[in-house]
């Protein structure tokens, strides 16, 4: 009887902790959100920000907040969420905590297609602003598809190890191709491309929010509904089969969802890496390995990280340091610390 009680207590304890962590994260996101609203090339006082939010601002203040800062911050939140959840799912599929959307060619594919586009069209035309995220998405999904096909074997389907190795090889190939193509670009276009690749949240427009949102609204609940499958996959291939998981099918749909989330995110944010790697990592430290908690909490952690990175990027230098670089500068040392700690 006492053991019974203890059991329930311990199960509830984990859920409680996850809720507590989530609430704290939401709270932090709100705080950073308001600080971020006040950060930028034109200074607005907090009072001005609040007045403007409630419709009392001048035309210029309205423009800055509603047309420049808010959409950009919303994009940062959505992209952070998308990349983090994509990373969490991928880590579950390949059973390797070092996986991130980069290994299935997302960043390389998106980068290559943007680059091909730029070598034929100018950056500034309206058409390119609409076309570019679309092409980036196609490039990202295309690279992921190629990696999938190359690592597929009829007798065994997709094995995580082959997926990872093929991913690395294809990404290396694409990157090499990009270096060759760089020679074709004029300096101005190159400048834009470099910033894009570094992950400057360049698509700061409500249009892009609308383009990105449906992906997240559909895929995140879907992935969440697969939390138990991800838990089972974590136990290893043979155990998953024994428990009746249809490995090949589950891996395929989860992989497709991860690609969708990451490709949509990268298409509006540019080549942001690392979020998909460290957000799920941090999350596991906070709430453990169960995917019911890992999926929502890594979404929050990713959103917080990217919002913060974008704000710091705008704070230290005008016009800005790309958020992707800030993420890498903060993320890399943290990651090394994690690896060092894992050893013992």
């Amino acid at each position, binding site marked *: 009887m006492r*053991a019974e009680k*203890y*059991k329930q207590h*311990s*199960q509830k304890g984990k859920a409680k902790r996850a809720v507590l962590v989530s609430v704290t994260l939401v709270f932090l996101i709100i705080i950073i959100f308001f600080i971020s609203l006040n950060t930028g090339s034109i200074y607005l006082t907090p009072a001005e920000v609040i007045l403007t939010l409630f419709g009392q601002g001048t035309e210029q203040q309205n423009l800055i907040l509603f047309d420049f800062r808010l959409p950009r911050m919303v994009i940062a939140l959505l992209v952070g969420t998308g990349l983090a959840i994509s990373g969490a799912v991928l880590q579950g599929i390949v059973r390797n905590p070092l996986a991130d959307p980069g290994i299935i060619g997302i960043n390389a594919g998106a980068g290559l297609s943007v680059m091909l586009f730029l070598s034929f069209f100018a950056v500034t035309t309206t058409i390119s602003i609409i076309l570019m995220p679309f092409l980036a998405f196609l490039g990202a999904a295309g690279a992921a598809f190629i990696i999938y096909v190359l690592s597929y074997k009829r*007798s065994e389907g997709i094995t995580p190890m082959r997926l990872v190795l093929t991913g690395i090889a294809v990404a290396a190939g694409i990157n090499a191709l990009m270096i060759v193509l760089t020679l074709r670009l004029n300096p101005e276009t190159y400048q834009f491309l470099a910033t894009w690749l570094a992950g400057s949240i360049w698509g700061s427009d409500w249009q892009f929010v609308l383009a990105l949102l449906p992906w997240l609204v559909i895929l995140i609940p879907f992935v*969440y*509904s697969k*939390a*138990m499958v991800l*838990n*089972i996959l*974590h*136990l*290893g*291939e*043979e*155990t998953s*089969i*024994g*428990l*009746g*998981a*249809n490995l090949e099918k589950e891996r395929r749909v989860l992989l497709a969802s991860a690609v969708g989330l990451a490709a949509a995110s990268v298409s509006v944010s540019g080549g942001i890496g690392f979020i998909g790697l460290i957000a799920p990592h941090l999350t*596991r430290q906070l709430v*453990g*390995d*169960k995917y019911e908690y890992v999926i929502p909490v890594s979404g929050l952690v990713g959103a917080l990280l990217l919002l913060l990175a974008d704000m710091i990027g705008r704070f230290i230098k005008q016009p800005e340091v790309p958020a992707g670089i800030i993420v890498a500068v903060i993320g890399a040392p943290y990651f090394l610390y994690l690896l060092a700690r894992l050893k013992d």
Partner: protein
Amino acid sequence: MKTIEVNKIDVGYANELIIKNLSISIPSNKITTIIGPNGCGKSTLIKTIARILNVKGGAVFLEGEEIHKVDTKEIAKRMAILPQTAEAPGGLTVYELISYGRFPYKKGMGSLRKEDYEYINWAVDVTGLTEVQNRAISALSGGQRQRVWIAMALAQGTDTLVLDEPTTYLDLAHQLDILLLLERLNKEEGRTIIMVLHDLNHASRFSHYMIAMRDGEVVTDGTPEEVMTCANLQQVFQIDAHLARCPHSANPICLSYQLCQAEKASACCSINSASKAYHQTASG
């Protein structure tokens, strides 16, 4: 009544067949053990029965249905498997891992129902894990961990259990502990148990039915009495075995053995003379 029918299967990795045209039947409500030297294909056979490996030809039937064709979740409700290399994420508690055994019965996001809890609690109880059910898996000893995996398989509520070397890496007492648990599950609940064991004497002591393999083929099968003969062991393992009677089960066990020497390959001894010889040396 046979639980599993293996019908003329071909199995192999890549282009090399390990098992060719193998047929065997596994009896219901009995403990069946597959034995054989390294690389004889016993692991391949049990993995094929567990549908971890696909067949290249032939078929495996579980209660009359082809296991590689039927919905894998339906199979999971009738047959649970314990792979050789089961590894758990360290942060999970014993209870959580065992609860994953209910996966085949879950629909979508649905949380565990009352029936699920009953199965889980029973599995915790019958494997003697009540005391440690809230500990992290990583905090357990090897023997306890193996019990947890068996408990997870039991929570699946299946009539058939397939285990690939469940006692490997355990010390003597813990090996016996696991086998006694399996024996009890078979005796008290009539579960069909199929496993691979390395230890011949354990196999003989706990099985109703034994399958001896060599080079991807079944050399002989039958009761321990029929399989554990000097001639068979010589053919299967290339050893000269000195057999005796197990004081616990009265089945034949291998007391000691020599490697077979080619020229005197037929020099085998019978159970009783070996046993007598043993007693003579022991008393003399």
